[in-house]
């Protein structure tokens, strides 16, 4: 069996394979590096950054759901300057593209972060306009096409030549409207889906399990929603897509590629199995070899019924 070429190009950045741990589930790459060589991955999205440090939400921040989970971490992070000072020197030396993920309360904050990150030389900037766990800014930008476009343009204008990928919220009526708006504003790629808003309640106390009452849902349970949205966005825009939401193994990664993704994100799956992402890289290689295909060829290859 010939070895399949797993490499893909996402917004001009070459990934040796399409598997990318997603923002907020992989820290700054250090923790899971204890279990496997992270250079085996296609790239990784670092924990969401804000201009200034944030302590995040009060606990509990995690609740289990049937085949999934809720989180309300609330963008806890050390701030973009601390990231560049403490984490970037280590990451810069890796044979692995690093995608910085940013959230802001104003377009000016997105602009300031883009300048700092592109100046330092990160491989790509993922503009999060869709975090459901912060009060101001974030979600509003992701749910209104004009605002999403404004933030995208601001990011592009200040990112130099660094590719800008916009992360879309599934908590909207029509995700293609937002995708078209950010395409029009110059985005180089889109990533989707961020988490779906959800809630769980403790029967004994009648309290929501999460201290913030609601949180963002992820994990295998959201896969069908993610596939549907990736497929819709693939049909609506020309931008490459980092598709994510509920992917756990090679088979679900192939589904995500077929729906229209160029690269495939994995997050919550790693909490269940730290080796899930590297197992998926290996499984994808086997699957492609067995079927005489490549990830590039699979992208958008679903054969919808007429």
């Amino acid at each position, binding site marked *: 069996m010939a070895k399949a070429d797993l490499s893909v190009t996402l917004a001009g950045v070459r990934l040796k394979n399409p598997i990318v741990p997603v923002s907020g589930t992989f820290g700054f790459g250090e923790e899971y590096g204890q279990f496997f060589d992270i250079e085996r991955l296609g790239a990784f999205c670092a924990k969401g950054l804000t201009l200034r440090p944030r302590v995040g939400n009060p*606990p509990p921040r*995690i609740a289990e759901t049937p085949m999934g989970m809720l989180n309300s*971490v609330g963008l806890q992070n050390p701030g973009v300057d601390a990231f560049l000072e403490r984490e970037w020197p280590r990451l810069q030396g890796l044979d692995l593209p690093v995608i910085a993920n940013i959230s802001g309360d104003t377009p000016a904050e997105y602009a300031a972060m883009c300048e700092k990150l592109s100046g330092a030389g990160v491989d790509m900037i993922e503009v999060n306009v869709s975090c459901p766990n912060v009060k101001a800014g974030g979600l509003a930008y992701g749910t209104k096409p004009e605002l999403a476009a404004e933030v995208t343009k601001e990011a592009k204008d200040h990112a130099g030549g660094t590719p800008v990928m916009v992360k879309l919220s599934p908590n909207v009526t029509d995700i293609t409207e937002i995708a078209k708006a950010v395409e029009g504003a110059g985005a180089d790629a889109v990533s989707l889906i961020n988490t779906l808003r959800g809630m769980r309640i403790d029967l004994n106390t009648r309290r929501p399990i999460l201290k913030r009452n609601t949180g963002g849902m992820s994990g295998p349970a959201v896969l069908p929603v993610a596939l549907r949205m990736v497929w819709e966005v693939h049909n609506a825009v020309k931008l490459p897509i980092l598709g994510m939401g509920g992917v756990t193994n090679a088979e679900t990664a192939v589904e995500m590629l077929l729906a229209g993704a160029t690269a495939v994100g994995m997050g919550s799956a790693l909490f269940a199995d730290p080796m899930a992402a590297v197992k998926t890289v290996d499984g994808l290689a086997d699957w492609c070899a067995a079927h005489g295909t490549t990830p590039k060829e699979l992208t958008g290859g679903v054969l919808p019924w007429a």
Partner: protein
Amino acid sequence: MPIQHLCTIVDKTPLGADTYWMQLECGDMVEQTFQAPGQFIHIACPPHFLRRPISVATCQSDTPDDGVSIVFQVRGEGTRWLAERSEGETLDVLGLLGNGFAMDPVGRYLLAGGGIGVPPLYGCAQYAGGRAVAVLGFRSQAQVIMPQLFADACENVFLCTDDGSLGFHGFVHQKVEEILCKDRDFTAVLACGPKLMLRGVAEVAAKYGLPCQVSMEERMACGVGACLGCAIPMADGTMKHVCKDGPVFDASEVDWNG
């Protein structure tokens, strides 16, 4: 560096109505990752999506396989699944995770445990080579676990029950204070149990000028510091993470109102 290992269950013994002792064969997990008593393991309970964190009660490096013993109480679906496993079955385990109790091997310790927080202190008693006094609290006599093991591993053991059905009638921190009134010759107080109990014990220890370490709980996803899910607030306004920075913290760091 934590290890993922398929561990074989070599012993499962009920310690009461809904509490179990389980011994696992863990490859070289203890040899590779043991730091101190009070670390935990993160156990997959399929089909439930998230792993369940359970403290190590005691462990030893051994050939051909290291041994890790846990004691758990059935609280919900995952621990019920765990209770239904049989000897010979395997568990997908991450371990040993976190930082345990910082102990001086020649120190003398006052151990304060409540309910299902009692088991990890057994490892502390062993580590202290018997130079430990244990105060173990339970709701009532029916819930008391591991009294003989502690009696064998400690200088002295005081059992407390909330309803007075056995031993001291009252809370663990009250008994701790009674002891410290007469004998302050301890390196530190080590505590594990419900948050209210930990807070009470921490206050008493501070009053008598003794260092106090507490083992905290929070809901977890990754268990290794990557998701920031298990944050607890610190007295200085920052967050720390139970899985990576803990589960054991210096009592003076913790924001007890958080």
